[in-house]
């Protein structure tokens, strides 16, 4: 009889505990309801891509020396470099350059290895087209300056989480000069230079 009563008591205790936990869970979900949505309302709001963002590749025609390093480091030998040897100047004359972004995986190897820095990554990522061949960018299309979120008057540009000031979780209504947490790259660079100078003096 006592054993049975103990069983009943234990069961009741467990039930109360379960009810308590469900109550705690409800409190959490209820609390979430009054928080501001974390979603970015895409066509009206856009995140500012980070500085290491690997978007559409920009190409500067005049800087290119047609060395074809970009082709050799590309996983699929994607860039098409069309050049001709010019006997008069004894240099390669570039006539066409193209990258098909429908095939490109945006690994950034070409940008990394380009000896004259004529390739660079942009923050452009809206590459949707109706026909995939439209993604085959020639040197003119590659030379276009990228679309910038911050320059678009129709778009509210929002900072990514990493670029918010310390303790701030909300990109809306930030003052324009709000500093992000931690040091900026140029500050780290200045610090390194100063350190190197100090070491040289020693």
């Amino acid at each position, binding site marked *: 009889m006592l054993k049975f009563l103990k069983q009943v008591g234990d069961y009741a205790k467990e039930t109360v505990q379960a009810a308590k936990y469900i109550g705690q869970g*409800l409190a959490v979900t209820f609390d979430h309801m009054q928080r501001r*949505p*974390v979603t970015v309302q895409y066509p009206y709001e856009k995140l500012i891509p980070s500085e290491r963002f690997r978007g559409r590749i920009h190409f500067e025609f005049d800087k290119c020396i047609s060395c074809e390093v970009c082709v050799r480091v590309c996983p699929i030998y994607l860039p098409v470099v069309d050049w001709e040897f010019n006997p008069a100047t004894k240099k390669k004359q570039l006539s066409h350059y193209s990258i098909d972004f429908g095939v490109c995986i945006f690994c950034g190897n070409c940008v990394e290895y380009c000896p004259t820095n004529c390739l660079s990554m942009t923050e452009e990522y809206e590459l949707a087209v109706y026909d995939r061949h439209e993604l085959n960018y020639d040197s003119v299309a590659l030379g276009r300056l990228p679309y910038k979120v911050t320059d678009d008057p129709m778009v509210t540009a929002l900072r990514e989480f990493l670029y918010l000031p310390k303790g701030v979780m909300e990109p809306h209504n930030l003052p324009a000069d709000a500093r992000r947490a931690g040091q900026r790259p140029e500050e780290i660079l200045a610090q390194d230079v100063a350190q190197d100078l100090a070491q040289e003096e020693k």
Partner: protein
Amino acid sequence: MDQGIDLQQTFIQSLMDLGLPAGAAKTVWMPLPMLLMIIGATVGVLVSVWLERKISAAVQQRVGPEFIGPLGVLAPVADGLKLIFKEDTVPAKADPLLFTLGPVIVVIPVFLSYLIVPFGQNLIVTNVGMGVFVWIALSSVVPIGLLMSGYASNNKYALLGGLRAAAQSISYEIPLALAVMAIVLMSNSLSTIDIVNQQSGYGILGWNIWRQPIGFVVFWIAALAECERIPFDLPEAEEELVAGYQTEYSGMKFALFYLGSYVNLVLSALMVAVLYLGGWELPIPTALIANWLGVSETNAWLEIVGASLGITMTLLKAYFLVFTAILLRWTVPRVRIDQLLNLGWKFLLPISLVNLLITAALKTAFPGAFGG
């Protein structure tokens, strides 16, 4: 208890004054409340679908439907329209008759149950003496439809889903009925009107929830299980069964299931409001308000205001419960089938039986407080 406004009597009387015989006048009246209730139930579904989407979004820190009408209120209408225009397919080796009949059998009893939902002393389609029992009887027709559609789909997932739905509905109907029985014991009547009247007089203090707290919890859990909402949505558990008995359905037939599940949710919330939260009663007794205002309780405008307030109160209570159901959906994970049956048979059933016994004992001991 005064009778309040009686639309039926007034309507029939005015028609008879116009020269119609009594029978004809009553026939003209009869379809009106039914039609109103069907429209009301459908609008209630639209509202609760919208609430579901908006509250779910808020809980997950999203925005939810925003551009389909102001604040996305037209989103459920758009959903419905889409389903109406979709192709209505029947699988090649399915039983076309049972396949079509399934969703119909699921939906009709749910809509029929609105017969006994009161929104005021005379604001009810029909005051059946068997009130709540009609609801329980009708809700046990639903699993037949679910099983039928699951079996007729000629699909393993659908069959499993249908079987699960039947098992779940049958095992949770018992604690549900026992919880209702305790209420019935206290109010000495199965009629929903009598049940609400028994709770009236003391405002919020007179509501059954204070006398039947265990019954309230048992009833709400069992009602959620009957509606197949998350913690208990096993019949359509998408990770295991694709969509359960709904797997093969599309277009209008799927829309019937969808409609039925939400009508059932609103209906269950309304029944909880009627059985445990004092139905159309205000938290402050009407007699007290009439006293404060210094007017008679039978004052004409007070009765009109009271009736509209009563409808608002019933809906408010019901939608508060719908809100808790939606919040629960994002709080509690789905139970396993064995846990579901354990909860039903080993927890809710004994608890509701004990609750019934205690209620009976309290009724004999304190007939004044527990309905003599």
